[in-house]
Each structure stands twice: as C-alpha cells, then as structure tokens.
C-alpha cells in the first residue's frame, strides 16, 4: 500500500533578511497509513518545521513531498489551504483555542471551516471519547490545561483528518494530564486508525508510539 506521507530530500530554508537558516536539510520520511509516529530531537533541529511543511502551513524549499497523494511541488498557497482544511488536524503545545469561543464552538468552527456542516454523531463520539461533555459551554480561560488540550484534540479530529500532526502536545501539561492526553491519542490511533505524527521530548510519550524517529540538525538519524 502507498504510504500516506512520503518525503525525499526535503529541504526548508528560512530567509531572515539576507541570512539563510536551513531548518530542514534533506529529510527522507515514509509513514504508512494508520501509524503512530513520534519525532524526537533537540530543540531547533527542525521538528516543528517538518510538521508545518507536512501540514501545508508553509511550502518546502526543495525536495519531494507527497501527502495522501498530494504533490506539494505542484501546489500553491490556496491549494495547501484546501489540503489542510480537508486532510490535516493540528494539535499545538500551547493548545491554541480561540479565546472568545466556548469549547463547543471551538470544535464546531473546524467543521464550519471545512464546510461539511455540523455532524452531531461524530461530534458526540469525539466529545465522549475525550471526556469533555461537561466542559462544552466553557470558554478556554475557564478550562484547565489538560481540558483545553482535549478540546484542541477534538477540534483537530472532528473533521476526520487523514493525518493528525501534534507538536509537543504534552509540553505544557503536568504528568497526570500528559498521560490522559497521550492515552487519548493512542486511543484515536487504535479505534479510528488515525495516522498520527507527534513531536515530543517526553520518553513516556515516545514509548507509546509505534515508532520513534530522531532528528538532528535538520535531518533524520538512522537507527
């Protein structure tokens, strides 16, 4: 079967004025559908950049990127936005909920942007699985970090994305909440065969994944 993520010699160079910052220096990556992959590595080695490229938030500088059959070299900004809308769910270290909306609306807005309208069955299933039924009418400031991150996960998966991209999802959580969130990601992967690419510094988190990739200086380390 064709892998859902395939990159070869993927490079990403940031330009800050005249200075070039090579964040990815040739990444080769293959992820089959349904796999739960953890990415580890020192700070600044390009993990977040890799996630942003795979999620279509930013364009690669060179190299091949194929995600769910989409060739990034042939995609412009609007194409990548559409791709992201239909195939990607993001979870961030800082939760990134919209502060003025309730938990329910934070989840619903993803469905709204996707354009398929509100799906009550999917909504109910996700909300129950993440254990946030009682928190739906709260705004983010009235939720604990763990609760906010669970709402963020619900928002990320509500539209059934092909890939869930999580950037240090437990980085701002205590160990108890980290464990809850990790178990939920594991559960999503198990019960929905959700493909997950998760960046983490946390050895417990990495241990939960099917596979751990290590990065350094913009490249994957072979083990």
């Amino acid at each position: 079967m064709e892998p859902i993520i395939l990159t070869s010699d993927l490079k990403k160079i940031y330009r800050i004025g005249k200075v070039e910052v090579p964040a990815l220096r040739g990444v080769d990556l293959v992820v089959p559908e349904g796999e739960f992959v953890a990415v580890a590595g020192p700070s600044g080695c390009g993990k977040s950049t890799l996630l942003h490229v795979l999620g279509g938030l930013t364009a690669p500088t060179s190299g091949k990127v194929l995600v769910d059959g989409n060739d990034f070299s042939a995609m412009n900004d609007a194409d990548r936005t559409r791709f992201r809308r239909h195939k990607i769910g993001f979870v961030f270290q800082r939760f990134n909920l919209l502060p003025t909306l309730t938990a329910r609306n934070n989840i619903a807005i993803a469905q709204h942007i996707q354009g398929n309208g509100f799906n009550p069955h999917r909504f109910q299933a996700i909300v129950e699985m993440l254990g946030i039924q009682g928190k739906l009418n709260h705004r983010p400031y009235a939720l604990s970090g763990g609760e906010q991150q669970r709402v963020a996960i619900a928002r990320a998966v509500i539209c059934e994305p092909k890939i869930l991209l999580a950037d240090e999802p437990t980085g701002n959580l205590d160990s108890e909440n980290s464990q809850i969130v990790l178990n939920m990601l594991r559960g999503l992967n198990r019960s929905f065969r959700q493909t997950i690419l998760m960046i983490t510094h946390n050895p417990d988190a990495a241990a939960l994944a099917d596979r751990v990739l290590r990065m350094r200086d913009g490249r994957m380390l072979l083990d």
Partner: protein
Amino acid sequence: METKMVISNLLHRPTRTIISILAVAIEVGLVMLTVGMTTGMLSETARRVEGIGADIIVQPPGASFLMGFTPAPMPIKIGDLLEEKVEHVAHVLPVLILMNVGVGVNIVFGINREQFDAVTGGFVFHSGGWFTGPDDIIVDDLYAKAGHLKVGQKLTLFSHSFRITGIVEHGKGARLFIPLQTDEELNQTQDKASIFFVKCTDPGYTDDAISGIRQFLPTYPVRSMAEYTSLYSSNNLPALNTFIEALICIALTIGFLVIFLSMYTTITERTREIGILKSLGASKSYIMSLILREAATICVLGIAAGEVGTLGARRVLQSSFPTLAVRLTPHWMVYAAVLAMGGTVLGAVYPALRAASLDPVDALAYE
C-alpha cells in the same frame, strides 16, 4: 457560526466596540444634522414666504432671490403703478427688508398695515395687536418663545429700541415686523421697497399678470410664488452645497479612520487567532469576510445609534431653539447610512486584506 464569532469578538472587547459604534454614530449624526438643519432652514424660509399668500414676487434687477440680499431697493411708486395699470393685479405689498445679525440672522420686514392685510389676509395675533407708533415691533410666536418675550417688552434692533405690540402666529414672511417708515429711516431711504408681493384678483390669472408686469418692468425678476419658493434649495446656493459636501467629507473621514484604526489594531491583537483559523484551513476569503462582517456589524449598530440619536437631538434642539428648523428626510437617513457603510467598508478592507495574507506559521508564533 461566523455571526457567533463576530458577536463574541465584539463582546470580548466592549470598550473598543462601543467607541467604534459611537464614532459611526457621530458620523451619521453629523451628516444628518448638517443636512437637516440647512434643508430645514431653507424649506422653512420658503414656507414662510409662501405663507404671505401672494401670487407673484417682484424683485429689483440684480437681486438675489434670497431676501435681504438686495443691492438697491425699488421706488414704492412702482408698486402703486402695478396695482393701477396691470390687469389682474389686485394688491401690491411693498416690503423693505432689513437683516438683523444678532443671535442668528433674522430678516425684518418693514410693512404698512393696510397693504399687508390686503395681500396676506392679516396676522393671527396670539397677544397684543398692531403698531400704534413708529417704535413698535411685531414678533412671531417662535421668536417670542425663543427669547421669552412678552407684549410690552422692549427689544433692541439696529441700536434702536422697539416696544413689542403684538405676538403673531409664525409663517407670514418674516419673524420680525416694523413700520415701513421706521424701516426707511433706519435704512436712510425714502419710499423704497426691496420686494413686492403681488396678489392677483384670482390665482388663475397669475401667468397673465406676470406677463403684464414684465411688460412694465422688463429687467426685473418677476416670479410666481411656486417658482420663487422652488429656488430655496441648496442647489441654488453653491456655497451652501460646498459647505454640506465638506462636512460630509469630514464625517466620512472620521468614520473611515476610526474603523480603520479599530480593525487594524484588532488584527494585530488577534494575529494568533488568525493563525489558528488558518491552521484549521480557513481561506483568505473566509478571514476577510470575518473581518468585514465585524466592521459591518459595528457600522450597522453605529447607524442605528446615530439615527436614533439624531432624532433625539432634533427634539432637544427644537424645544430649546424653537426658531431652528431641522428637517430629517428618509432619503437623507438612507443616504447617511449608505455613506457610513461605504466609509466602513473602505476602512476595513486594508486590515482585512492584511489579516488574510498573514503567514500562518508567523501568526501562530506571534506572542
């Protein structure tokens, strides 16, 4: 859903929302009051001239249609001649007009009782009665109300002390009336009039009478009452039109700038939120429409507040300044609203474009 977002954003920053709404309200109010006061003043003046009840108006050559801007008055004899010689002319009322520039500009009519009554059908007195001496003055009820004046009180005009002998129902040309002769003395003229109000034997003969008068006075502007009052529009007063346009421009600029600043700062403040929406796959047009809707909501609330506020302001103005006419037409209420909406959209477009073109990675990293 977008509506929910817009409303929650507006409620989240109540001060900014209220200030922006207020700015739009002031913009709308400024336009409506300016136009309302100028058109009100003009149409009220026209109605007052109409109230004289004449059929034809004769002015000296070169005179502006605006009463009071008359270069050289005409001999009163002309009026007598018209009355005698022109067919269908029943009565002629000569008036010598003075302008009193005090609190506001007031037109003073110098009149003779007999001719005034013949053309207008006479005053309706609220109190008091006609002049009995040269230093007497008649004022209309609105002028009296504005100045809290009573019959018997003194009133100084043109450094001349008058005694109020009568307070009359408004609507007969001017608000202030003095004896023609006194007027002539103040004006240092004799047997002169600035305007003739002509009454026909029957209104049906107006056109014939006009031709008759024109034969007599070929260089004098002779107009029917309808034609004359139709001149009282800002289109015939280029300076006034320019003034109105300038004020509308200022109002529009205020609205534009406030919306621009309000939306611009809110975009900066919400950079991360925009990044979040982009990470969820929101397109440029989605984000633009969100910003424009927010601005439009502010604008609609501002228009409503502005129009209600203007209606309220008019009530207050008219009870404290009875001589002030403020005319608010539906046409101008719609026009003010359209102008405000135009200014808002213009003000919001650039911030919206900026928000839509933010780089999602940078926006998400924004502190």
